[in-house]
């Protein structure tokens, strides 16, 4: 009898599930950044708004990359549902605090995928996920740099917010 499962896909179910979850996390991240971009835009932070729009697009690409990997490997990619995301923020600074928290959560999720790949001997997926490891290293560094700038530039001084908006948008 033929092994129909193995000939149709190189992903075992557990890996397929965790990749679909990762796709959803990336897609959610894209929406979170989009909401941040809108908030920044309507509060006058034009430069960081553009920066966040760009982040939103990047996350969308991360999402598509996993999504297509699943189908390329013969798996079943499930279009993620779109949940509500935070639309309002208490302050300019809070936006970047939450952004960093999000990036840390994404890094942890990626580490879990890799741990699962190792447990299941799926080295192809592990190799694929290594791109995300490098990407997260950059993302976390950039998010942390934004908060660092809040320490360096006093947002309550005359042109503080204006300067922060400019400097943060230059990160990366």
């Amino acid at each position, binding site marked *: *009898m033929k092994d129909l499962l193995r000939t149709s896909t190189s992903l075992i179910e557990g890996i397929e599930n965790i990749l679909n979850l990762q796709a959803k996390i990336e897609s959610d991240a894209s929406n979170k950044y989009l909401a941040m971009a809108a908030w920044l835009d309507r509060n006058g932070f034009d430069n960081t708004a553009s920066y966040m729009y760009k982040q939103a697009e990047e996350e969308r690409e991360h999402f598509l990359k996993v999504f297509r990997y699943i189908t390329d490997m013969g798996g079943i990619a499930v279009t993620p549902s779109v949940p509500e995301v935070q639309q309002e923020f208490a302050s300019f600074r809070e936006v970047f605090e939450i952004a960093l928290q999000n990036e840390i959560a994404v890094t942890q999720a990626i580490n879990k995928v890799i741990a699962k790949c190792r447990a299941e001997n799926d080295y192809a997926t592990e190799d694929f996920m290594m791109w995300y490891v490098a990407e997260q290293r950059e993302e976390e560094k950039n998010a942390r740099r934004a908060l660092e700038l809040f320490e360096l530039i006093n947002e309550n001084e005359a042109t503080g917010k204006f300067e922060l908006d400019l400097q943060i948008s230059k990160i990366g």
Partner: protein
Amino acid sequence: MALVSDLTTKILFETEKGYSYQCDLTNSIIINFVDTVSSYKIHDFLIFQRKVNNVDILNMLYDLSDKSDAQLIETTKRNFSRNLTICEIVQLRELLNGTKFTLNLHSMLCNILKVELI
């Protein structure tokens, strides 16, 4: 024309309400459930199995209105389209999950045996 004995060796799972087998000629899974025969490529089978498992049976049980007595279960490419009662959904689940179990087991065995042969 496949022999009957050939067919029976490829039976994947059998319950009181139906059985399933694998057709190596067409690379498909054939499900015979309460006299409805439908055939699936592996992906469509997996999607069908997940769909049946995702039916919210508890919700159907607690909902006393007539519309919750049965639910239309349809698959991709319209291999299967029937109004199933709660009881039938549970029976179909048993058949599909059993089938999936055999497929997994077979795949695992193939994997292990190949490794040992090399």
